[in-house]
């Protein structure tokens, strides 16, 4: 009797039957729901604790490990690449310096050779000039001597032609005098 009274107050029983009460408050279904709820929760708990959660946790940990390793490897490769680049730059700079050095050396050698050749050529030219000058001087001297002789002979011939008695001594002296005046 008391039980029925409680059900009526809670709006169960007939109130549910005509659609206005709350089936949630029908105490007669509570044991059933609670029993099956406990079964469901225990089932889910064992499935999760024994199988699902360890498995997913392991997968996530493995993935994390893989990612960490990959990042470390990538970092290492990056360092290697940086080293390689540095080495390359160094080699390039060395090569440039070497090339510079060789070019400089060649230029100096060539300059030296050039200077040497130039000097040699200058000396030869100077020698030849000197030789030529002596020859020219010789030629001029001999020419002068010839001219003097010719002049003396011509003067003797002229004096003879003019009817005078050519005094070769006097003629020679006169010609010498004149020629000295000329060359002066």
């Amino acid at each position, binding site marked *: 009797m008391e039980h*029925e009274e409680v059900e009526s107050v809670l709006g169960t029983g007939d109130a*549910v039957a005509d*659609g206005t009460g709350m089936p949630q408050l029908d105490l007669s279904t509570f044991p059933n*729901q609670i029993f*099956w709820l406990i079964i469901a929760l225990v089932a889910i708990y064992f499935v999760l604790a024994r199988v*699902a959660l360890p*498995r997913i946790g392991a997968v996530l940990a493995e993935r994390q490990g893989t990612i960490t390793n990959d990042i470390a490897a990538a970092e290492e490769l990056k360092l290697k690449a940086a080293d390689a680049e540095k080495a390359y730059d160094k080699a390039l700079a060395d090569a440039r310096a070497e090339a510079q050095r060789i070019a400089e050396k060649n230029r100096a050698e060539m300059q030296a050779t050039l200077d040497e050749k130039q000097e040699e050529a200058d000396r030869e030219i100077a020698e030849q000039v000197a030789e030529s000058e002596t020859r020219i001087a010789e030629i001029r001297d001999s020419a002068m001597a010839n001219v003097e002789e010719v002049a003396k002979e011509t003067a003797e011939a002229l004096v003879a032609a003019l009817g005078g008695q050519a005094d070769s001594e006097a003629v020679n002296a006169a010609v010498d005098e004149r020629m000295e005046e000329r060359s002066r």
Partner: protein
Amino acid sequence: MAQDGAEMAAGTAEGYASHDGVEHSGFNIHPMDQFVVQPFFSDGPVGMFTVTNATVWMALAVLCTVLLLVVTTRGRNVVPTRAQSMAELSYGFVYKMVHDVTGRDGIKYFPYVMTLFMFIVMANLLALIPTSFAPTSHIAVTAVLALLVFFGVTILGFVKHGMGFLGLFWVSEAPLILRPVLALIELISYFVRPVSHSIRLAGNIMAGHAVLKVFAGFAGALGLFAFVPVLAITAIYALEVLVAFIQAYVFVMLTCVYLKDALHPSH
């Protein structure tokens, strides 16, 4: 009341199952019918071990949990499939919540929290299938869930801290005179926890489903203009999908908060 008693004597179970000829005027809407617990395979009374519609939908929630978390992860792929991603997302979602709220020492209780979350979210979402049954709309179910948390957390608190757990109620920052008053308030609020914890979930789910049913009844009564309630049902359904998830989240979040109180009771 005398009539009521007579009808009730005829047996409540049959009473719920049909509205044997009792027609109401105009609208014939029975929004609460969907919550009636009845045997699934046969008529008759609901005993403790009877397989009822509640049983079936709880079992489906268990099945879906297994499908989501066990079957999809069978491959253990480092690069996950789509289904495995969903399982991992669910795992990560709850794991992060437990870790963020309770701290590192709360991780031990992650399987319990995950169990609650999976059951509630699956039951809530499955209940949105038309003609299905919503176990979480029943106070009997949510009260058990909330009391499990309440007793579990209280026992854990005393086991971990002994009488120090009572420090939870003794607000040491407050002035000495106020502390007894605050302790009383804290104590009351502590015991109200399972009530609000359970009624929040059941109330939300029940209200949403009842509203859907009411609008469905309008649609039946309006004839050509039924499209208006149908549109409303569509909108409310979308909201209910959100509510189904959010209520599971809220329930589990509060569980974590209570767990944190038990692990670190000092104010």
